[in-house]
């Protein structure tokens, strides 16, 4: 009853502890939810709550640097057969020069993982599809190789496999006659890792690429997108890609 702090719990102390406990109890479910969004258990399906995205700061992309391209090829088992016109390219560096100002950029371009993908619209068998968490993929079990999606994609994101493929990466099945493109390293992100290109860019110290959940306001990518100006390629087409660029 006395307000003597040395006697044990004072009223203020009790209120403080209660408030802290109440706050903790209220916050805890929130913290657990974020945990779940960040680390999906293998038997859980991908969720609409998540929208994976990439943010690329082209100010940090140097002409001639192709760490992301090389990492993608290594990760996905894409081999250079010396025929660039028919070899698949999931990511490439596009060198740009502004016709009016003369300013140059070097931009990595891959499948933009649109919210309204034209490739999904045109696929006759539904092999080209958008996963619940926004990644646009090709289901090679159903792909008939009609190349319609390649005609429809405004970003020239896809390639068709012209020859037999051997020694695939077991995480990345790919084969002759099917169409393919950047998967945002879905086999990695499903196990809480980063796409190979992002990892390679960070490892080399350029830090031009950020990957994360655009729907999570706490994520680095969402905070950056909210803070700094970023654009989408051909935003006028209103496809709302998940890949955004700074410095263009």
């Amino acid at each position, binding site marked *: 009853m006395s307000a003597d702090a040395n006697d044990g719990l004072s009223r203020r102390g009790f209120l403080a502890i209660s408030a802290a406990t109440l706050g903790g109890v209220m916050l805890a479910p929130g913290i657990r939810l974020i945990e779940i969004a960040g680390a999906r258990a293998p038997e859980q399906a991908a969720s609409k709550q998540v929208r994976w995205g990439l943010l690329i700061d082209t100010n940090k992309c140097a002409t001639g640097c192709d760490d992301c391209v090389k990492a993608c090829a290594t990760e996905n088992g894409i081999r250079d057969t010396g025929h660039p016109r028919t070899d698949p390219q999931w990511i490439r560096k596009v060198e740009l020069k502004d016709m009016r100002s003369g300013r140059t950029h070097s931009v990595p371009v891959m499948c933009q993982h649109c919210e309204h993908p034209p490739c999904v619209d045109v696929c006759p068998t539904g092999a080209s599809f958008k*996963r*619940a968490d926004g990644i646009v993929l090709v289901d090679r079990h159903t792909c008939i190789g009609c190349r319609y999606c390649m005609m429809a994609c405004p970003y020239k994101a896809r390639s068709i496999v012209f020859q037999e493929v051997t020694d695939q990466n077991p995480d990345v099945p*790919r084969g002759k006659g099917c169409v393919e493109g950047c998967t945002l390293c879905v086999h990695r992100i499903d196990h809480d890792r980063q796409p190979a290109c992002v990892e390679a860019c960070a490892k080399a110290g350029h830090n031009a690429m950020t990957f994360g959940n655009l729907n999570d306001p706490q994520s680095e990518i969402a905070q950056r997108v909210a803070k700094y100006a970023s654009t989408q390629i051909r935003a006028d087409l209103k496809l709302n890609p998940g890949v955004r660029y700074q410095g263009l």
Partner: protein
Amino acid sequence: MESSGIAALAGRIARAICVLALLLPVFALASDRVPKPVINIDKPGRCVEDTETMRREHPDMLRHQRDQTMREGIRTRAHSLKGCVECHASAKTGSVLGEQGFCQSCHAYASVTLDCFGCHASKPKLVSGAKP
């Protein structure tokens, strides 16, 4: 007049062919023509299901699993093709294909096309401990 003669002859030939066709199963007794499948279990331990279930159900299991993995991102290891390959790859060749390969020898015997390994790796991943 001649056409009815030809028709009758054609009819007789067709009947003969039908009768002979009924005798075709006798070829099944020619056991040396197709090698019996070689089932080498190089890795110790049990399969994810018992043998009879696997023999009967593995096409459906794989088909169901592939849709779950591909479309929904469910990556449980139990029925994954990667899991099968890891265990059943031959110790000698490192692959489930080849003349004595676990998948291929049965499929060759049963004369069922193996479409999987046009895209899927027939050898397990070599890097140890990298896959979660």
